[in-house]
């Protein structure tokens, strides 16, 4: 039963994809995603994955090929990162609008310019409005498990929406850990392939990409919105069923780590959640009532979960590897929007950290907790946006 493999995040994700048995893979290599597509090519070569592997000339073509394959009812997979994700942006909208349950891995990486290949989440967070479900993982095991769950979520008849599985570049893609490989038979049972309701069919010919003018467009957009709202239940269900079959649960849309009695909580996503958990343990041992809320998805946004878990905290910090220039971190805006519907809203503070791969240490997170605790006790109108470890004086000084 125990089948442990020492694998990098990229390799773990590729192992998960092999278990999910996509019928078509179309991908273009890009750092730090490259190992995933190389491993998948290895699996095709050694016969352990029977799939049509399409070597395409760009990410735009990769997504276009996935759209074509998915339109024929094929289970598809692609993987990208950073500039590649941005290059396929046009096709992301075609895929989601067409309601094709494509699963894609995105290795979170900084965006140019200045040029940088290291990890931050500005690539995927800039694509929140593409109509894709966006999941984020904390480690290699979660990457492997989540890519399998992604097919169950995407192909749910109430959802039929593409899913992007995000894992942090280098911090996850290139670090090794022991991962447990689920049994193929159980995975087959968990995500049995079924015909897609919107697949092209000679016996029932359809036009695809029909025109919907002003008289119809709102309803199609509402339908798409409903599908992603429905995916909230599908994400939680996929997690519960996964736990029943494989014994691992990630909490569904969010993980509540020691938040129930906490008066200072940090909300974050991706690999830094793991570091934050350790800091929470350290601070708890010293008597601080602190907690971690890990976002596993940002589309759909777990509004109700956040209101419930964060509602009683005095102060909430949002730690993210993103800045939406001219405002604040995109995740911070989302969290504030959810909390603003509470009668009494906790004070909130935004930490912009880890840009272009800058390390986020345990000490950084400890200081972040200390900062929000002080901010929670301070009634003055201080700034609530901070670039962590900014190596220069603040603008205006």
């Amino acid at each position, binding site marked *: 039963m125990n089948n442990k493999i020492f694998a990098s995040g990229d390799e773990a994700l590729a192992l998960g994809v092999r278990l999910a048995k996509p019928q078509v893979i179309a991908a273009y290599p890009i750092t730090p995603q490259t190992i995933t597509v190389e491993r998948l090519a290895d699996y095709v070569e050694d016969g352990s994955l029977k799939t049509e592997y399409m070597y395409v000339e760009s990410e735009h073509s990769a997504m276009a090929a996935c759209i074509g394959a998915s339109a024929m009812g094929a289970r598809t997979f692609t993987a990208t990162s950073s500039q590649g994700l941005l290059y396929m942006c046009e096709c992301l909208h075609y895929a989601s*609008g*067409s*309601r*094709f349950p494509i699963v894609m891995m995105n290795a979170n990486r900084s965006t140019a310019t200045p040029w940088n290949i290291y990890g931050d989440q500005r690539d995927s967070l800039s694509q929140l409005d593409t109509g894709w479900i966006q999941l984020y993982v904390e480690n290699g095991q979660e990457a492997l498990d989540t890519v399998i769950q992604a097919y169950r979520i995407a192909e749910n008849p109430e959802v*039929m929406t593409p899913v992007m599985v995000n894992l942090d570049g280098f911090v996850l893609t290139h670090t090794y850990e022991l991962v447990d490989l689920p049994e193929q038979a159980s995975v087959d049972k968990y995500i049995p392939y079924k015909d897609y*309701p*919107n697949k092209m069919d000679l016996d*029932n*010919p*359809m*036009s*695809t*990409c*029909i*025109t*919907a*003018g002003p*008289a*119809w467009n709102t*309803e*199609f957009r*509402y*339908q*798409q919105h*409903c599908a992603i709202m429905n995916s909230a239940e599908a994400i939680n269900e996929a997690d519960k069923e996964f736990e029943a079959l494989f014994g691992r649960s990630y909490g569904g849309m969010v993980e509540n780590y020691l938040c129930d009695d906490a008066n200072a909580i940090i909300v974050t996503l991706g690999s830094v959640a793991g570091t934050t958990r350790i800091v929470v343990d350290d601070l708890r041992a010293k008597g601080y009532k602190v907690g971690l809320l890990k976002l596993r998805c940002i589309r759909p946004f777990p509004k109700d979960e956040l209101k419930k878990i964060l509602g009683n905290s005095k102060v909430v910090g949002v730690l993210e590897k993103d800045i939406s220039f001219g405002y604040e971190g995109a995740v911070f805006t989302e969290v504030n929007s959810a909390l603003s519907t509470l009668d009494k809203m906790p004070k909130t503070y935004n930490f912009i950290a880890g840009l272009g791969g800058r390390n986020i240490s345990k000490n950084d997170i400890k200081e972040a907790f200390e900062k929000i605790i002080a901010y929670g006790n301070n009634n003055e109108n201080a700034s609530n946006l901070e670039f962590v470890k900014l190596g220069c004086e603040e603008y205006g000084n």
Partner: protein
Amino acid sequence: MDRPKVGIYDQPKNIREYPLGPSFKSGHLVDVSSGMRSFRPIIDAEKCVKCMRCFLVCPDGTIDKSGEILEIDYDFCKGCGICAKECKFNAITMHKEGDI
């Protein structure tokens, strides 16, 4: 003229009754599309020899050849004027919509 007919598609009451994404059985025309036309091509049946050149070059497929004479489906003609330019017999002329 034997042209696709614009039909009425009853707006579904429930969002579940909408097609899943924009995939739908072909042939449902719910609207005409010619509002942007500023010049209208008119075929002079006396000059027309039914060589079918206009039928071939019309980008919107609006030349109807089902009857005795060629006719233009003005519900879908955008007024691009390619037919008039390509006609070797000067049988098609363009007329400003407001003057007709």
